[in-house]
Every structure is written in C-alpha cells, then in structure tokens.
C-alpha cells in the first residue's frame, strides 16, 4: 500500500467475500446452478434453507436475548429485570471466568476475575438471587455456561433454585451452552479437562436433559466463539456442524431415540462484517444440517432436522476508537442475522471493545432489535433474499467449502480427535494471524483503525481511505466517550462470605460423601449429572465439584504455541 508515499490508495477489496469466495460483479442466472428449487424447498420445509417456520417472524418473532452478567448475582438480577422491563424476551446470562471453569471465588487464582466478564456464582443460593422475581416457567433462560466442567454444576444449581421455588423441572425452558470446544480450544484457562472428557461431560448433561428436562436445550454449539477466536465463515460453520454430528452420534449411541436426541442440539452463530457471506452461511447451515440428519442418520422427523440457532453480532469487529460507530456495525450485522433466519439474537453494545457494557450501551443494543422488528419491515416475509442470484450463488459456494472442511475433520476421526491433535488450534491461530496481517497491510479496512476518518474525526476522506499505521495515527482516541465498567466494591468479599455461610450450615460428611459418589461416577463412566445434582443438594460448592471433575477426568495443556 502507499500510505507513506502520498500516492492514491487502492479501493478496498471487493472481488471476493471476507473468506475469499469470488464475488460476481453482477450476479445473474448463470451464477446459480440448476436444481435450485430442490436445494431451497419452502420455508418450514426440508431442507429448510429458507427457514424453519413457514411464516417465520410473522408467527415466531426472534427472541430478544441480550447477554448480561457482572459482579454478584443480586447485581446481575437487577440488570436482567431492567432488560425484561425494557422489552427483552429472554435471558442470556454470562458467568465470570472462574465460574465458567468451576473454580471457586475463594481460589487464589480467581481473585482478580471474580465478577468480571460475567456474574460470580459459587453455590446454589447464588442462583436463587440471580433469578429472583423472574417467572422461570414463562421466560426462557440461556445459561452461557460455555465449558462442560461448569455447565453441569451450573445447571444442577439452577435446577435446585427453581425447584426450591416450586417449579416443575419439566416446565423449565432454556439453554446451556455446554461446548467441549470452548473448554479445550476456544477459551484458555489453567487446567482444562481433556477433549474426550469434556465432550463426555457435555453429552452427560445432554442425556440427562433428554430424560428429565424436556424443554431444555442442553447443548448450544458455539460457532460464534469459534469465529471470534479466528475462524473465517466456512471454518466457523464446519466446526459447528462437525460438533453437532459428533454430539448427535454420541447421544444416539447412548440409546436415545434420534427424535429425542437431535432436538436437544441447538446452535449459536456469529453475524460478522461481510453482509451477504453471513446470510449465505446461515442459509447453508440449515440445509447442511437437515441433509446430514436425513441422509446420514436416516431420520425423517422434520423436528429433528431443523437447525435452530441464536446469533450474536461480532464482538471482534467492535472498535475501541470511535465506539459509537459500533452501533452502526451491530445494526447491520443484526440485519444479516434476521435476513438469515435466526431464532434468537443478541446485539453487541457499543462499548464492547472497552469494557463490560454500561446500562446505556446495553439499552441501545436492545432497542436496535426493536427497530429491526418493529420499524423496518424486514421481518414480514420469510427468507426475503431467497432466489437472489447473488445470495443463492454464495449459499452454494459456502456449502461446498464447508463440506470440504467437514470431510477433512471427519477424516481425522471427528472433532474430538481433531482437537486432541491440535488441528483446531492451529487452524484458528493461523487464520487469526492472517486476518490481522490483512488489517495491517490494508487488504482489510476498518473505520477508525486503518481507514475512514481524519484528524478531527469529523470529516470523511472523500471515499479514499487512508490505510496502515499512518491512517491509524490520525484517529484521536480522545473521542472515546465511554465510562468503563467498575466492579462494585466488595464483590469478592461478598462471594467468599456466601461460600463460608454455606459451608457453616451444611453437613461436611454428607457433602464429602456426595463428592465421593461423583468421583466414582467419573471413574466408572456412568453419567455424572445425577451425582452433580446430588452434590449440589448436599451444598457442595462449584469449586469443589470442579475439583472432583478435574482430579478424576484429568487436566489438559492447550497446544496453542
């Protein structure tokens, strides 16, 4: 690029999508392969390319499910209730890093992260506070318990809290994220369970839910996070589908009927910057999953063939400079999710690159969803881009690329084996670095980072983006008008007092016996979930349960470097 020479800059690359699929300058009939009608079907019908419901949002509006979680359960409960009061229709609860890993707030390694990045939970009482005054039979609750080591005890604690309030567990509707790849490849932390063990716990939770919690989605395959860690769109979807395949085969192998097992698996995808490529990805996802279920598993029940998914706009595209531009980015990304037929949506807050979202930023994000559904008219007709030469062309191209990657993963013995072999880590980090290099040399432009605004931030550059470090240097970070999140003082102490109180009231003998039973379940290969539920009933803490799982199932070192 020519940022140091004063020569004219190249226009941004437009001849391919972000992942490198060639983009027709003007798509026409010849860009769409024959047999389109068979590849599409009608909305609500196999292969569900056009959506899983016949009338989509007319009859089933997507759920406004804004992510929230910080400090103590009482603090987060206030945020949940504020969001519900202001028009959210579901809860999306995120936990702090120690809680995700089933590490106690009283562990020395946890101290600086208690209540950061999510809410701190240690005992079932925290779930009493977290969901106080929220009608759990009417509001669906997504627990962003991403790692199986935490997902199992979190669900047991949620169940204990709900049953204490008199709810029948069969009435509880919600989702546990519960994704072994989150534990072993996507988010790092000391002492991850090994991939096969984490996958086993994931499927233990799913099997338990298939038998006891009919309205619960016990696995949400988190393609979103695969993408944020470095995947491009085809790799995001390939890892997602490969994971879904592994879980489906495992659950059916455990003796669950496919019609029961398959609807237990749901999905979570990213809405990234490249508008049409993302829409193509959402559409291809539905078609590929339906065909796997019908053709590979031989299951003809339509309910078992539907790829149901949640979407979050791409946190990784949010910039710290000029943070209010993130409102525009998120809105456009959210539109792609709606045009792609999502069932549920989180829109990122504009301060995402700087801090835990402020209340103001969280409300702007929620109301962006209202603008989409209520003002724009985009939800009135199912799959409005179906039949577009460009979108059908990209959907087919996406499917072809994803299928090649899925075949490659299956050839390695499936996703668990590919993770053990560090293939997943290598592919993600390679792409993350390549993507950063594109940004460095101007092959990818991001306004506020390497393009678009000059010294005073007020005027554009007439469509000629400055690129590279010279462009970046012109942005004044003084335009940031975001008040960063401050952890309420006393969060750590409150959490530790709560653990102490539970330990004081319980029978240590009974707790130790319940933990020993859990340890035996780990070693004997029986489903761990019933003994996790029993350990919670005996007032075992999250950290104690996590320690048993790690001691008995093993600790794994990330092959990242």
């Amino acid at each position, binding site marked *: 690029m020519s940022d140091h020479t004063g020569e004219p800059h190249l226009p941004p690359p437009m001849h391919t999508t972000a992942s490198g699929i060639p983009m027709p300058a003007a798509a026409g009939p010849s860009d769409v392969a024959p047999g389109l009608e068979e590849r599409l079907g009608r909305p609500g019908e196999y292969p569900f390319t056009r959506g899983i419901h016949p009338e989509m949002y007319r009859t089933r509006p997507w759920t406004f499910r804004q992510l929230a979680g910080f400090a103590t359960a009482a603090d987060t409960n206030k945020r949940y209730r504020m969001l519900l009061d202001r028009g959210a229709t579901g809860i999306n609860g995120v936990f702090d890093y120690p809680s995700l890993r089933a590490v106690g707030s009283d562990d020395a390694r946890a*101290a600086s992260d208690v209540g950061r990045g999510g809410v701190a939970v240690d005992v079932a009482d925290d779930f009493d506070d977290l969901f106080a005054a929220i009608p759990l039979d009417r509001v669906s609750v997504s627990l962003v318990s991403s790692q199986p080591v935490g997902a199992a005890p979190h669900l047991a604690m949620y169940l204990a809290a709900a049953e204490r309030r008199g709810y029948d567990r069969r009435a509880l509707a919600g989702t546990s994220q519960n994704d072994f790849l989150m534990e072993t490849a996507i988010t790092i932390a000391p002492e991850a369970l090994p991939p096969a063990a984490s996958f086993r716990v994931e499927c233990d939770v799913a099997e338990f839910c298939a038998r006891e919690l009919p309205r619960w989605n016990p696995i949400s395959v988190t393609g979103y996070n695969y993408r944020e860690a470095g995947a491009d769109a085809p790799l995001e979807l390939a890892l997602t589908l490969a994971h879904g395949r592994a879980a489906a085969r495992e659950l059916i192998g455990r003796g669950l009927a496919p019609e029961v097992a398959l609807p237990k698996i749901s999905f979570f995808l990213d809405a990234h910057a490249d508008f049409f490529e993302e829409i193509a990805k959402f559409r291809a996802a539905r078609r590929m999953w339906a065909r796997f279920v019908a053709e590979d598993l031989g299951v003809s029940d339509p309910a078992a063939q539907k790829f149901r998914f949640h979407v979050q706009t791409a946190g990784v595209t949010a910039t710290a400079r000029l943070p209010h531009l993130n409102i525009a980015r998120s809105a456009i990304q959210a539109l792609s999710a709606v045009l792609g037929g999502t069932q549920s949506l989180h829109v990122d807050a504009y301060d995402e690159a700087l801090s835990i979202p402020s209340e103001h930023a969280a409300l702007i994000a929620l109301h962006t969803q209202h603008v989409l559904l209520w003002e724009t008219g985009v939800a009135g007709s199912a799959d409005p881009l179906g039949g577009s030469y460009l979108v059908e062309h990209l959907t087919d191209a996406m499917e072809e690329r994803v299928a090649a990657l899925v075949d490659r993963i299956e050839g390695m013995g499936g996703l668990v084996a590919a993770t053990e072999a560090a293939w997943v880590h290598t592919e993600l980090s390679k792409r993350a670095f390549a993507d950063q290099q594109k940004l460095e040399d101007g092959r990818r432009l991001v306004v506020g980072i390497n393009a678009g605004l000059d010294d005073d931030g007020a005027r554009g550059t007439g469509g000629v983006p400055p690129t590279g470090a010279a462009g970046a240097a012109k942005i004044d970070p003084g335009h940031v008008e975001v008040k960063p999140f401050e952890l309420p003082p006393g969060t750590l102490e409150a959490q530790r007092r709560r653990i102490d109180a539970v330990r004081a009231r319980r029978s240590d003998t009974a707790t130790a016996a319940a933990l020993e039973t859990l340890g035996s379940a780990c070693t004997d290969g029986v489903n761990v979930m019933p003994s996790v539920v029993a350990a919670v009933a005996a007032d075992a803490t999250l950290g104690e349960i996590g320690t048993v799982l790690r001691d008995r199932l093993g600790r794994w070192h990330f092959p990242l470097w």
Partner: protein
Amino acid sequence: MVAAAGSSPLSGKAVVAKLGMDAHWRGVIVVAHALRDAGMEVVYLGHATPDQLVAAVVQEDPALVGLSSLSGNHLEECRAVLEGLRSAGAEGVPVVIGGTIPPSDEPALAEMGVSGVFGSGTPLRTIVDRIAVLLDA
C-alpha cells in the same frame, strides 16, 4: 526459535503470559507471532500467577515481559506482577500489556511501572515499533 541476525527490528527473549483466569487467547497469540516474526525468541507461558511469572522471569532472564488481559483484571494482576518482580530483584525488565484496557487506566498502570499499554485495535507495527524503542532505551 532464536532471533535472526541483521535487519530484524527486535532481538532477545520475551516472556509472554495471560493474567488471572481471563480466557481470550487470540490477541496474545497474534502478538506473540508478530514478536517472533520481528526477531524475538518468545516464551509463551499461557496462564501464569504472579508468582509463576516472576519465577519464569528469573529463570529466563528475558528482555521483555508481555502480558495480556481482556477481562478487566489488569490493575490487580499488574500490581502483583510488578511487586513480585521488584521483590525478586528483576524490576529492570520492561513490562508491557495489551488487551481490553480502558484508556483511563493507563496512568495507573504507568505509575505501577508498566512501560507500555497496547489497547484494543493497536496495529502490530505500532506494537513492534514501540517495543523496539523501549528495548533500545
């Protein structure tokens, strides 16, 4: 990998680590690749407690310590790391940090002895250039 001779902008060894329980690795691995490409030998520790990090610094005697945090734990963790380095007599090694760091926290980090803060969106070229200046000083 040993630093290439000649035109590489950087040389010497960097000890790189994640702080606390923060789970994001994308940034730290990308920057570690960039430091290696720029000529440094990178020792990536993964997660380290302040004690583990200080022990690694004493053992490896690096030219640079690079830290990463996106969870908001940077003030507590950096304070513990810098104090640990001082107690171990290793306060001479420059410490830099990258990640989701609110600009308003930069003065506090500087006061603790952190030599560079690379917030979200900092180009790799800027990071390498600033580290080169830091190591020449």
